[in-house]
């Protein structure tokens, strides 16, 4: 069952996610996803967070969230639109790869390109944006390769390991989006998928 099929990942519904979520919230990936925040999180808290999100969905919440599932079947993280303003036709996005083994190789890129295609082609948005820490080089490289442009530097906007850290706001307009196919080719995503997982169907 898939909604958005990619080369290295598929974006699928958020099913049966509690165990993975518990693992991700308690490993080093959380610091990266949460702008420096970390600390032990209990199963009960995870349950409450999931419940809270589900309730939000019933009250006209506009976000759309997917699980990133790698070609080997592993749930590796989440990606989605945190909110969608259909009148301004903009959305804010965020992603979290909780399994370190999948931080590179193209999984994040593949997931982001699928999401961008969804936002521009299906929701007819004209703009996407996101925010990341300036120490998160991996994320910056990823979004820049996908066409996002640096728009703002929010100085000392977050705090990591005892020090203030700037955050960066990136945006992309639909006129700047060449389409998923063009970027898949430009970034050699097929070859990278084959290298990792063997021949792509």
């Amino acid at each position, binding site marked *: 069952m898939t909604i958005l099929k990619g080369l290295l990942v598929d974006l699928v519904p958020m099913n049966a996610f509690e165990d993975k979520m518990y693992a991700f919230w308690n490993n080093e990936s959380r610091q990266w996803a949460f702008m420096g925040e970390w600390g032990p999180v209990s199963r009960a808290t995870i349950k409450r967070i999931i419940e809270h999100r589900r309730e939000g969905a019933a009250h006209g919440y506009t976000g759309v969230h997917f699980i990133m599932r790698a070609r080997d079947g592993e749930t590796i993280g989440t990606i989605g639109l945190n909110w969608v303003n259909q009148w*301004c036709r903009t959305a804010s996005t965020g992603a979290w790869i909780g399994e370190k083994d999948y931080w590179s190789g193209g999984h994040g890129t593949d997931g982001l390109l699928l999401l961008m295609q969804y936002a521009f082609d299906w929701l*007819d948005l004209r703009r996407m944006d996101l925010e990341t820490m300036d120490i998160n080089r991996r994320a910056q490289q990823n979004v820049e390769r996908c066409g996002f442009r640096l728009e703002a530097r929010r100085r000392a906007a977050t705090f990591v390991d005892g020090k203030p850290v700037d955050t960066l706001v990136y945006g992309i307009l639909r006129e700047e989006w060449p389409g998923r196919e063009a970027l898949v080719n430009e970034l050699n995503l097929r070859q990278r998928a084959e290298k990792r997982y063997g021949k792509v169907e």
Partner: protein
Amino acid sequence: MLQGLLVDLVPYGQVYRDLEHTWRNHEASFWSSGGDRPIVTHAELRTHFERRAEYQNRPDAGVTFGVQTKDGTPIGFFSINWLVPHHRLAMLGARIGDPAYWGGGYGTDALTLLVDYAFDWMDIHKVWLGTTDANARVQRQMEKVGFVLEARNRDESLMDGVWVDGLLYGILRDQWPGRAAVIERIGLKAHR
């Protein structure tokens, strides 16, 4: 709020909700509902508005304007009553409550204000609305303003015991020349 030549579109406040009792129990509502003749109490209307208020903060909540003449007389409402955000689609609804203001350009003035609003402020892709084939006035207005007849739903509504067809009209953003061009073309003018 939105200023026209014959009417202004204003917030749908308490004075309009109070007048709804007169308007809904009246002939106008037979036309705007496609044949219903409601008999409603003040209390029922209060409940109706309370329930509607619960939906106001949803991202797909519509927009309702009160319509008042230039001298401040409330005469009805015009609204986007069904919004589908992901299709950028807006369905309009309207009722001018007092037959004294049917014809004369009030409805057309309000309609063109609302269509401009939908395209310019809400970045809608398409505006559509329905009426019945018994409503000659609205059909004439649709043609004048530039809506295209897209569907005829046969026997969709019952008006005084007779089955009538429903008519669906639509206009796409790239076909809408803007309110200014439309009212110029149809010769809508302020009174006096």
